[in-house]
């Protein structure tokens, strides 16, 4: 195994290999040191020179390396194994230590100038335990100064660490060096600390596992203190097993720490095998909301980003599938007070803990001349501390000073009790929720860019709002990477609905024709033939490009794309390569909100909001189609009917993020194509074909991983299913430690599985060159303007206008603009009606739409013209006919094509409001049904409705039902 791979292994793999002597501890150490040399760059220093371009491409996790110490430890491990002694449970596993821990003989700086020259004379208990267990300490890693921060930017030792997944972003903090060194494969494990989330938040940002143990589980002896009642040392690893192995070693009582609890340490690794079956795992709405500054000095609550909520719910789904029971709607109402409480309590303790840095006993003392001790204190601390310690010291002074203390400090301690109570209630085995664990997002955002937040101390602290409650309550927490996002681009081929093919006079549509009957010498590539461009192809392509907001090129060229395939008669496809008809373009894709229902059939308790996904278009060009082939008994059968059909190829950027978004894109594209009249866009008839490019990466990353291409998906549902299946497959591969390879996959609709196809030739092998048999397409202003004059108001624009202009709800507007002729019908009806547009909308959405669907026609083809619909509604408004007659009139007008008023007159449908007439019929009904009359009088008053029905029946449905009811009531008294 090569050195590079050794440092990417897990703790348990390394321990086992070292113990079995497959590899030596020295070799493992060397692999890590090589990785560090390759990626870490210069270590953090005081007063460094400015940042160079190379610095920006390195991780800078370390402040000081300890290679001699590490080598001695590794050699000792190898020696013990050689002589048969137990090398320890972490034998040969390299680890880094957050430079907040004292380690004998090493600079232990706390990331601060004030301790830059401090060489610790003793070793912190957790580090000593790790070394005694055979682990190998590689060095001290960078951190926010005295652990004050959530981005690692406040360290006095620069350059500060960068996120290995995206070096322009922060690794998180304050254990940023720890998580960066693990994520980059520089070490296998790291020892960090968590006070408001300083293990879990950077673990989330760096995609590694971080554990904050229960307060008091791990000794704090040797940990340079921040908030004594909250600080927790804890493990950071790339996998949960590594974290468990490390916690096993460092946990447990310590005679040097009076707060290290006397609670037996269980076997954490044994618990791993049991899995989550039977565990109750809760979700809380209070963790899907975050608090943000409102820009005016106050705070407001807003929903967390939908991708983050979706990642957590996906995790819940996986846990449910693994046998856990998911409990929804667990209230944790005091979550929102976590940061305000933290601002008070931590600062009081920190200010006091920082009193000892006074230039007297160790660390920095001001070199300036001083008049007295007071001046020495002041200058030493002013020069030695950075801005973050100063902020915390001053705030701590303020909230703990005598006259302010009751208001701030004591109050904060009491709210801390409320926060603790939220957890007690959630975890109470006799309570309403009886949870074993609460599942939440770790961070309100993904890793932010370096420099984006630093300087705003409130915003920076709020990065910890989801982690700090566990610190206040003392309960343990673990952050697990879950944020892999899918990156999807769609290549669509759109068959234009011209009459003839693009380069010859054969028909474009031959779906129902027998094979090889719609052909000619040109489209079958016979020797000597030449292509001649169809002008309507250009016109329809220009309309589509304009609707996609693309730049239409006045001059564009055709190119030959050369390859061998039996359905490609010329051995090349005429397409457009680098000078296409249009460039750029985009679609603002509305993604509807939906109910996110999890398990156990409960109705959706959580609605995800709708949002707009911006989809860029990277290619939009014209080309000719190939023929069709099918497989039969080991032979290929070829049909050339489709050769030369005009296509527009349109490719999106990698902008879609889920299978559902991909489906929405196709739905809107299909709507647009039909709206413009450029394609029937029926996927089942291959008018609209789609290949999907799918890859995954950590959420928030900016780079792209290798992608697979999925072909042969023939319906929108198949696109959704195939993409979802491929995303799951890629996630499984990556989680198993393998790479995703750039395969071409084919979707087998019947079996519902993906199959790997032979790999395509690369772009260079198509040997594109300008098609010499065709002249460039010249789109002069006159021609272009004539085409664009046909561009209608687009569907999403019209939907927005309907909402604005007619006051319709978005749902109604979406339906009424689903199809162009339906929307035109609606507007014409509203014009003719002249009254409340919502009334017209109700009649359309209920009755007219049903008619259109049942008859299988477009709204424009109805004999029930918009003016007639308006007339019918007016007749009902005026009381001339009742509502049910009005509804029946719709069908009568559609059948006969006659105006409604004519039919009303001819068939005598007018509402009968003649009191005498109704009275007479009512009398008959009562006389004919004496038993019912008796029941009514005896108290069964619901029979009134039945009597009304009988009167309506006798009067052919024309009676005014309200009047009939009044009269009957009167007669039945």
């Amino acid at each position, binding site marked *: 195994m090569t050195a590079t791979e050794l440092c990417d292994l897990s703790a348990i793999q390394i321990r086992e290999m070292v113990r079995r002597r497959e590899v030596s501890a020295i070799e493992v150490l060397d692999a890590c040191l090589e990785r560090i040399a390759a990626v870490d760059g210069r270590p953090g220093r005081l007063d460094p020179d400015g940042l160079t371009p190379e610095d920006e491409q390195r991780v800078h996790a370390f402040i000081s390396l300890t290679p001699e110490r590490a080598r001695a430890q590794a050699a000792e491990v190898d020696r013990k194994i050689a002589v048969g002694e137990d090398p320890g449970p972490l034998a040969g596993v390299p680890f880094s230590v957050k430079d907040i821990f004292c380690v004998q003989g090493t600079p232990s700086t706390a990331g601060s100038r004030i301790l830059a020259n401090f060489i610790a004379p003793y070793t912190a208990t957790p580090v000593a335990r790790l070394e005694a267990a055979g682990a190998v300490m590689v060095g001290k890693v960078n951190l926010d100064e005295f652990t004050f921060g959530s981005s690692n930017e406040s360290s006095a030792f620069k350059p500060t660490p960068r996120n290995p997944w995206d070096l322009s972003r922060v690794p998180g903090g304050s254990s940023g060096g720890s998580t960066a060194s693990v994520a980059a494969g520089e070490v296998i494990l790291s020892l960090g600390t968590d006070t408001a989330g300083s293990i879990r938040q950077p673990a989330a940002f760096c995609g590694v596992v971080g554990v904050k143990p229960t307060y008091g589980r791990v000794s704090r002896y040797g940990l340079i203190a921040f908030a004594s009642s909250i600080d927790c040392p804890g493990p950071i690893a790339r996998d949960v097993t590594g974290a468990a192995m490390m916690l096993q070693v460092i946990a447990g009582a310590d005679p040097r720490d009076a707060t290290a609890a006397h609670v037996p340490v269980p076997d954490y690794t044994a618990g791993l095998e049991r899995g989550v079956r039977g565990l109750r795992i809760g979700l809380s709405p209070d963790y899907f909301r975050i608090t943000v500054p409102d820009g005016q000095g106050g705070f407001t609550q807003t929903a967390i980003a939908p991708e983050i909520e979706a990642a957590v719910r996906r995790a819940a789904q996986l846990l449910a599938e693994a046998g856990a029971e998911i409990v929804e709607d667990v209230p944790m109402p005091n979550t929102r007070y976590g940061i305000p409480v933290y601002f008070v309590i931590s600062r009081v303790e920190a200010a006091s803990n920082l009193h000892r840095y006074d230039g007297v006993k160790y660390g920095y003392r001001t070199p300036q001349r001083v008049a007295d001790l007071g001046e020495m204190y002041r200058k030493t601390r002013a020069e030695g501390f950075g801005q973050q310690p100063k902020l915390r010291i001053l705030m701590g002074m303020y909230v703990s000073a005598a006259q302010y203390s009751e208001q701030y400090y004591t109050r904060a301690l009491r709210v801390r009790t409320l926060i603790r109570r939220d957890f007690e209630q959630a975890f109470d085995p006799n309570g309403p929720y009886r949870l074993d664990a609460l599942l939440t997002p770790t961070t309100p955002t993904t890793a932010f860019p370096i420099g984006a937040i630093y300087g705003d101390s409130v915003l920076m602290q709020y990065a910890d709002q989801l982690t700090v409650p566990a610190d206040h309550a003392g309960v343990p927490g673990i952050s697990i990477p879950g944020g892999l996002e899918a990156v999807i681009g769609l290549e669509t081929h759109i068959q234009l609905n011209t*009459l003839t093919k693009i380069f010859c006079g054969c028909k474009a549509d031959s779906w129902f024709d027998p094979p090889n009957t719609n052909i*000619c010498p040109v489209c079958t590539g016979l020797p000597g033939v030449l292509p001649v461009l169809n002008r309507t192809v250009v016109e329809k392509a220009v309309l589509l490009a304009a609707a996609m907001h693309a730049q239409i090129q006045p001059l564009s060229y055709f190119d030959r794309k050369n390859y061998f395939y039996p359905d490609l008669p010329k051995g090349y496809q005429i397409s457009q390569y680098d000078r296409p008809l249009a460039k750029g373009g985009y679609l603002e894709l509305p993604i509807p909100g939906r109910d996110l229902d999890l398990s156990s059939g409960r109705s959706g308790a959580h609605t995800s909001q709708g949002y707009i996904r911006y989809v860029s278009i990277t290619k939009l060009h014209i080309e000719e189609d190939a023929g069709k082939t099918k497989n039969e008994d080991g032979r290929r059968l*070829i*049909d050339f009917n489709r050769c030369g059909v005009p296509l527009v190829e349109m490719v999106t950027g990698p902008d879609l993020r889920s299978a559902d978004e991909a489906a929405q894109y196709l739905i809107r594209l299909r709507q647009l194509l039909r709206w413009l009249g450029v394609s029937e866009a029926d996927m089942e008839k291959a008018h609209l074909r789609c290949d999907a490019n799918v890859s995954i990466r950590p959420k928030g990353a900016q780079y792209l991983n290798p992608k697979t291409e999925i072909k042969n998906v023939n319906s929108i549902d198949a696109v959704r299913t195939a993409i979802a299946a491929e995303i799951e497959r890629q996630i499984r591969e990556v989680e198993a430690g393998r790479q995703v390879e750039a395969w071409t996959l084919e979707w087998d609709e019947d079996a519902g599985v993906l199959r*790997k196809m032979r790999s395509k030739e690369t772009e260079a092998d198509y040997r594109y060159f300008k098609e010499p048999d065709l002249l460039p397409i010249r789109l*002069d202003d006159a021609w272009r303007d004539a085409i664009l004059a046909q561009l209608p108001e687009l569907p999403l624009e019209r939907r927005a206008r309907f909402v604005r202009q007619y006051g319709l709800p978005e749902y109604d507007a979406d339906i009424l603009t689903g199809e162009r002729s339906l929307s035109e019908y609606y507007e014409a009806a509203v014009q003719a009606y002249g009254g409340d547009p919502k009334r017209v909308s109700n009649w359309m959405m209920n009755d007219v739409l049903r008619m259109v669907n049942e008859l299988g026609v477009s709204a424009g083809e109805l004999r029930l013209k918009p003016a007639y619909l308006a007339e019918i509604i007016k007749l009902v408004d005026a009381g001339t006919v009742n509502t049910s007659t009005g509804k029946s009139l719709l069908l009568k007008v559609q059948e006969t094509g006659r105006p409604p008023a004519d039919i009303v007159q001819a068939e005598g449908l007018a509402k009968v409001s003649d009191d005498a007439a109704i009275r007479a019929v009512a009398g008959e009904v009562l006389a004919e049904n004496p038993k019912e009359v008796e029941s009514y009088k005896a108290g069964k008053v619901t029979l009134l409705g039945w009597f009304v029905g009988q009167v309506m029946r006798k009067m052919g449905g024309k009676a005014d039902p309200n009047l009939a009811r009044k009269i009957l009531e009167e007669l039945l008294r």
Partner: protein
Amino acid sequence: MSEEISPQIFEHLVQLAALELGAEEAEYLRRQLNNQLGAIHELEAIPLDPDLAITSHGIPYTPQISPAPRADEWRPFAHPEDILSQAPQFEDGYIVVPDIPHEELE
């Protein structure tokens, strides 16, 4: 003679061209190609003005002399059977060729 087209590159070209060559023929052709490259390299010595446009057809096609695209009118070919009768293997309306290799995804 330059070795610009190495045996590996030449093999790749043979695959792209859907050809199959014996060892002697391949070597002969490869040497001939490399000799020809010598002539092609003469082009590199010529200084070219960055504004010098390409000539794609010899004569310049102005809008005036460029034929317009054709109208979208159906003109069916009268005798498709004359095309299909040329095919080496034709059955039940389809042109027949051997199958294309596929790989199963495990």
